[in-house]
């Protein structure tokens, strides 16, 4: 039956890509990066609330203290390290003092409007429980305007527990960073272990699903599979029939006909594991196989599932010719 172009195209596309598999390293890499970004955002929450107040005051301080150029970390080889550092430190200390003098936020909610890239964003934080809502008013079609992340930021109580002397805060920040790094590593390790477990599980399932063919099953099916090849020697052919003769369960019909009506000796056997009958129709002069056939019997409907129809597949050899030169395909 001729299939449509679309069906053939579908089949071709599936066959041409069926061996392609996505590498799990890609997923792992992306997940790890996203997890790291997530933690960084959470950690940033610490400075956001505190620094928001400080930044406003700090900006005013810079404006009044004249046109001192902003001190930046210097490149190796630059000639002005000490002075730049001192100026930077002075500015920072100044900021620190201003920040300390600012009044502490006492309300429960914080709202921040942001411009992330070209996207407008509004973030609302509930400082009591760390819930974060993000709104993207001009997000594209299909993106919900309200995005909600549960417990995305540290709570006010957690922030209040952070140390406020410089040396212990430094120790705290360093420890926090290291812990986050360690947690990420442990999660990755757990992932690897989980995958190993999954693999072992899969192996067990596959082993259990393998049909348990007996030696008799193998002897017959392999012998039948070897017989069809016209290139086998008479001695091998002869030995194959002896092997088949010694295999239990083989049924022989000496007066059979193949599907073209040619007289044949039918040699068949039911494979109880594979659940089908394999038959070889040998020419009566024992020189060649006329037809091979496999028959799956019908299965009855069971447990509300429909049964399956009997299925027979024949391979009929119409002619076998030998030649000294390579024959044409037609």
């Amino acid at each position, binding site marked *: 039956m*001729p*299939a449509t*172009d*679309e069906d*053939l*195209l*579908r*089949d*071709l*596309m*599936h*066959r*041409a*890509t*069926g*061996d*392609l*598999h*996505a*590498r*799990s390293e*890609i*997923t792992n890499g*992306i*997940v790890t*990066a*996203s*997890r790291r*970004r*997530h933690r960084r955002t959470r950690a940033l929450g610490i400075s956001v609330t505190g620094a928001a107040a400080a930044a406003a005051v700090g900006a005013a301080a810079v404006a009044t203290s004249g046109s001192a150029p902003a001190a930046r970390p210097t490149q190796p080889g630059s000639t002005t390290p000490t002075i730049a550092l001192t100026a930077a430190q002075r500015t920072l200390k100044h900021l620190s003092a201003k920040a300390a003098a600012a009044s502490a936020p006492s309300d429960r909610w914080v709202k921040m409007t942001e411009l992330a890239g070209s996207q407008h964003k509004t973030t609302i934080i509930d400082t009591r429980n760390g819930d974060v809502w993000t709104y993207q008013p001009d997000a594209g079609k*299909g*993106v*919900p305007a309200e*995005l*909600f*992340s549960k417990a995305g930021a540290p709570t006010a109580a957690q922030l209040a527990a952070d140390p406020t002397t410089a040396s212990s805060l430094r120790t705290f920040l360093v420890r926090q960073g290291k812990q986050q790094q360690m947690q990420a590593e442990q*999660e990755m390790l757990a992932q690897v272990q989980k995958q190993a477990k999954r693999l072992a599980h899969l192996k067990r399932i596959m082993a259990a699903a393998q049909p348990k063919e007996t030696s008799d099953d193998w002897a017959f099916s392999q012998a039948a599979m070897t017989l069809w090849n016209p290139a086998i020697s008479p001695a091998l052919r002869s030995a194959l029939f002896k092997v088949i003769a010694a295999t239990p369960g083989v049924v022989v019909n000496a007066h059979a006909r193949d599907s073209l009506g040619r007289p044949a000796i039918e040699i068949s056997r039911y494979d109880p594991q594979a659940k089908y009958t394999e038959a070889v129709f040998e020419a009566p002069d024992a020189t060649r196989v006329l037809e091979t056939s496999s028959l799956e019997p019908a299965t009855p409907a069971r447990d509300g599932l429909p049964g399956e129809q009997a299925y027979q597949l024949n391979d009929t050899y119409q002619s076998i010719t030998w030649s000294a030169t390579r024959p044409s395909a037609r």
Partner: protein
Amino acid sequence: MDKKQARAFESFVAESGDLLLRIATLLTCDVHLAEDVYQETLQRLARRWARVENPRAFCRRVMHNIVIDQQRARQRRPSELELYAGYDSRDPRAGDPLAAVELRPSLLAALGTLSPQQRAIVVLRYFDDRSEGEVADLLGVSVGTVKSTASRAVARLREQPGLGALLATSDTH
């Protein structure tokens, strides 16, 4: 992405990763480019994971957009237009027609002659088995456009010498 989201993301990729990579291959006509597109798509998905309602549709749309962007970039740099020329154009019938690696160059070369839009419609419609309505939704075009583009694209593929031969091979199976 929190831990729970990461798990959901991973199970989505475990379920759909192979299919997505294969779609990317058919859309880009290049297995290496496809892996880049696949990775970029997953990165974009990961960034928006919490807000994406339908990750399957999202990925298909994003993949198509990336391919279009790449196509535009290539057009700006015509020297790279040679990308498809490297394909082995041996008669596909000479080898085992069932082997994916044998089929792939001819199929991808033929798909490469279509416009990105035609390719996306053929791949989503016939490989991914999306309905005409779904394809129209994903690509933001009308159902009529999907229908007419698909039939024109299939006719065009039929004319490709490499693919014509493959379709002939398939006829005999």
